[in-house]
């Protein structure tokens, strides 16, 4: 079990310039997520879900407001520091998997580990962890396959394995089931939740799928960049 990461979003806004106009993707958000919990962020397209997730992962900075991961205000850190936090503590799962096409499934997982390992914080026994992950995610037969040789579900499982490879304290999922059929989608979500449970990491998933959202502990609904509802999920089997 790794120490989970808490998140705090304070008055965060994000503006974009598009076609000479200023678009407010996120408009004064305040959210607090406790360590070890799972949260779904839902809302219609363009409501600012992915922008918020990107800011939580340090991929971009808010136009105003602050974001804390545990006690660290990530929103004010330079890119190099934010990258360090990502490779050490955050695992990303993307909608279109975004596996590196020239690496096998196993190498994609190793790549994430190597990113962390090269930074000096790698742990011994990483290979056991990797083997365990591959086995646990049912990828043993596909470890040496390239992404374009895998099905969508298999690719996303590799994506989850990669996100978990370095033992993250925060798992961020951006529509992780968006391109999967419902059966595969459920199985992938099972894996994510199981991983979160196993590792104790905090899980934040952006989704427009209500079924997916309701399987997480809390559902935050955004509209026009603002929180319109924040409630506990109605757990479904």
């Amino acid at each position, binding site marked *: 079990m790794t120490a989970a990461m808490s998140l705090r979003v304070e008055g965060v806004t994000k503006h974009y310039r598009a076609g000479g106009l200023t678009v407010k993707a996120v408009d004064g958000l305040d959210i607090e997520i406790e360590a070890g919990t799972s949260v779904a962020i839902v809302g219609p397209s363009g409501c600012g879900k*992915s*922008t918020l*997730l*990107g800011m939580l*992962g340090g*991929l*971009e900075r808010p136009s105003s407001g602050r974001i804390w991961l545990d006690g660290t205000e990530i929103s004010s850190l330079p*890119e*190099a520091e934010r*990258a*360090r*936090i*990502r*490779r*050490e503590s*955050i695992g*990303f799962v*993307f*909608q*279109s998997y*975004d*596996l*590196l*096409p*020239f*690496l096998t499934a196993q*190498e994609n997982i*190793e*790549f*994430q*580990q*190597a*990113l*962390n*390992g*090269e930074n000096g914080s790698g742990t011994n026994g*990483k*290979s056991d962890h*990797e083997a365990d992950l591959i086995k646990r995610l049912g990828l043993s037969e596909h470890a040496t396959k*390239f*992404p*374009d040789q895998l099905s969508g579900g298999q690719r996303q499982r590799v994506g989850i394995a*990669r996100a978990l490879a370095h033992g993250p304290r925060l798992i961020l999922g*951006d529509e992780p089931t968006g391109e999967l059929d419902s059966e595969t989608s459920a199985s992938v979500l099972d894996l994510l939740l199981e991983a979160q449970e196993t590792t104790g990491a905090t899980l934040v998933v952006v989704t427009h799928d209500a079924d997916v959202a309701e399987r997480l502990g809390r559902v935050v609904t955004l509209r026009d960049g603002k929180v319109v509802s924040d409630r506990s999920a109605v757990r479904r089997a």
Partner: protein
Amino acid sequence: MLRYSLRDLVRNPRRTLASVIGVALAVGLFASTAFFVDGSAARMTERAIAPVAIDMQADLTSPLGSSLTVTQSIGGGPSLAAGQPATVTIVVTNTSDRPATALVVQDVIASQLSYVPASTSLNGGPSPDAGGESPLVGGLRWGSLTVGDKLTITYQVRSTGPIPAVAGLPMRATVVSAEDPMPAAANRLPAVSLSQFASRVATVSGVSAVDQLAAIDLPAASLSAGTKSLSQPLRLFAFDPVFLTHYPMVRQTAGAFSPGTVLLSPDAAQALGAGSGSNVSLTVPGRGSPLQFAVGGIADFSKADPLFAARSTDNQGEFIQVPNVIVVPLATFATILPSLKADAASGSPTLKSAPVLEADVRLDRSRLATDPALAAVVTQGIRRSMERLVPGRVTVIDNLSDALVAATGDSILAKVLFLFLGLPGVLVAAYLSRYAGGLLAEARRREQATLRARGAQPRHLVSDLTYTALGVAILGSALGLAIGLGTALLVLGPSALTSASRQSFLISAAVSVGAGVVTTLLAVYLPGRRALTREAGNERREMEVTTVPPVWLRMKVDLVFIAAAALVWIITNLAGGFRITPAEGQSVSLSFYTLLAPLLAWLGVTLLAVRLLLWGTRRLKLPGGKRVGRLTTWTLLRSVSRRSLALGSGIVALALAVAFGSSLALFIATYDSQKQADARFVVGSDLRVTPSALSQQSSDFAAQLRVPGVSGVTPVAQTSGAIVGTEKRTLVSIDSAVFGHVATLNDTFFPNVSPAAAMSALRSDPTGVLVSTEMARTFNIQTGDQINVQLADRTGHLVPVTFHAAGVFKDFPGYPQGIDLVGNLAFYQSATGVSQVSLFLVRTADPSPAAVGRVADLIKAGPGRSAPMLVETSATAFNRDQSTLTAVNLRGLGGLQAVYTALISAAGIGIFVFGLLLQRRKEYVTMRALGIRMGQLWGLVFGEAAAVALFSLGIGSVTGAVMAYMFVKILAPLFTIQPASLTVPADQLATLATLVIGGMLLSVAFAARSLRRLNPVELLREE
């Protein structure tokens, strides 16, 4: 749709630039090469006509012909009945420019007619019969006729039978005068004198000056001074002093050609012991008493070949240099000409040949077109105009048109040569455009998918593609023309462009734009049309590994190219295309079909090398352990190994550019060094000093030539009168101990032995002689054979000398025209008693042109002050090169192509890196999301770009060397001495490598900046 397409071009400046840059470079290179060729062709015209001493030589075909005209006619109608009377009229006109005296008119009456006694009248008055016959039978005499005056004689005849056609009766009246002893026949073309002809020629448009010249070869003993008489024949020239200013080929070395005086050649002056102020006596056949003249000065005719050229059409172009020459004024010749006519009219003429009466014509060269073909049309027109002035009575030697026609051929050859040398650059720029188009295809497909999703019909997409291609073509062509113009101005200077005609300039520009449109069609439009036919479902594949090999790889195009190149090479070789044959005249023959071989090899070898590289990278042994080790290297190796096709495309583009640049650099460096070697071969060493005939020197003079900067001097004696069997051969005598250290000796000069061994063989036997391969073959001479030669001693008598063959030679420095024998100077001098030598070869410590020039100046200012001499350097020999094609400005072309190699290489590596960013941006932002450091990410881009740059440099250099070798081999006729190996211009190749690597680093630096600016959130959401 048009607005959308144009907006798309404007909104994506980097993408537009990537598409346009290849087209622009292709058009730029094509245009600048074409502009350069136009300028070069114009300069080739200048160069071709520069050595022409006399533009046209118009010779009267009957120099001794009478200047009186006779017309004869019979009245009484076209036919005569038997016994019908008729009047015969004879009119004699003095058409010369001087009075005619003591005229005698004769006629022989046709057998069908009978003379009517006492019917002859002369200028209207009766003329009595002589002995019952017409006075014309024995010759009717008349005192004189002034210029233009006429003498009319009539007499009556009666037909002895019916004459159906009077015109068929023979007209046999003739006239002679004291001035024109050769009979002038009836009804011939009116006579014309040289002065009359010259004044008519002066009125022809385009003629700037006409000089009259007369010449006659007189027998031995024609000229004497005091008790001395010339024992050899004499060439007499007649011209006025102004001729010397118009034609400096006749060099006045002493005195002055003042009115009433004559000039002598150095040989004649020396033989007679005459100089300025001396009196000479000239005996002219047909004249009773010799003419007396005061010698005004000495003139050197050694460079005046055209004056000694044969004028007859049978042997035109042959030169017979006569050492003894006298020049008299034209007025003097006018008094000699009747004597010559009298001699010719005599039963046993002394003179073997008729005199030459010639109008030497200078054209206004500034009015000639810069295009040699157009200029030749004008000069040939002027020649025809001159011929029409006196039809049938003049032969024109058209030296200027001959040179222009040769230059026309050379200019066409040069254009083809330039285009062949420049073609690879255009092709690689076009390929670059295609490469960029391929890289951008993904982005375009995504946009097309979006347009389809928004309801765009296929025709809309085709319209969009057409407008985009049109936009790229217009932008690329305009930019290319500007680049072409700019680079031509920058590299070659404004004169390169201004010397070309506006017409050729506009044609080149139009053809360049045409090339741009074709390039765009091939690079942008066709791949776009192909992409449109694909399924919409295949549109989004950004993150997939490209696995479909390109057409050239699948179709084995590389092997096809290499096989085709080998085929062209073998066929050319079997057809004898690589055998060096001596160039004839001013033109050089080149097999341009063979130039396809290096082009095919360029493509074939490059593609084959890339094929092998791809084969190798796919088999890279990647570390299979659990630990990744160095992340950048680990990732890079996998990326390169598994996506080698992408890398290969980049390498193909860049390697082709590097091969193109390095091949030209190697070829031009080899060409330059070989032309200098050729020039040194022509001169014999760095300098050649030829003492004047008036101031001949012995071997000891070499000591005086040892001015500062000289490392060696060697004397050379040459005699063209060495008689072997019955043939005259040329013997060159050298100091074999020193010659090898001073002269430029090449390994190829001596078959089977080294130059040092050849010199040693000569040195070891004082009677030894090296024999030319031609002479050895003709006389079947083997090494060690005895060769009996007759040589003239210092008194001119022939003495028998026995040599022994010590070896053979193919070429000998200083004698590009070829010689027959090379012997030891000491032996030659002891055998003949001749101490004077012909010339001295001088070697300088520093062979650079500047240093050689300084030494030449020192010699002229030192020993040259007291002893007249001709000092030639390799630089002057280089400029004297006769072929316009061999003098083409390859260095200029090289400079131009070097600029484009740099631009194409920089654009190539830039487009490759830009393509990496475009194709892999999602991959890069994924890595950023996973937490990769920017340095590591930059390392990945740098690693791939560096691999492309280094592999391209390696493959390009090897291919470039192969191409340069082939170019040198094919263009061998341009060289006198065949190059033994390629000259490597290390500085230029290093510059090329630096530019490629520098361009790569710059591109990667821009890429690093772009990587920072990528928006991960936006890109990761992009499908």
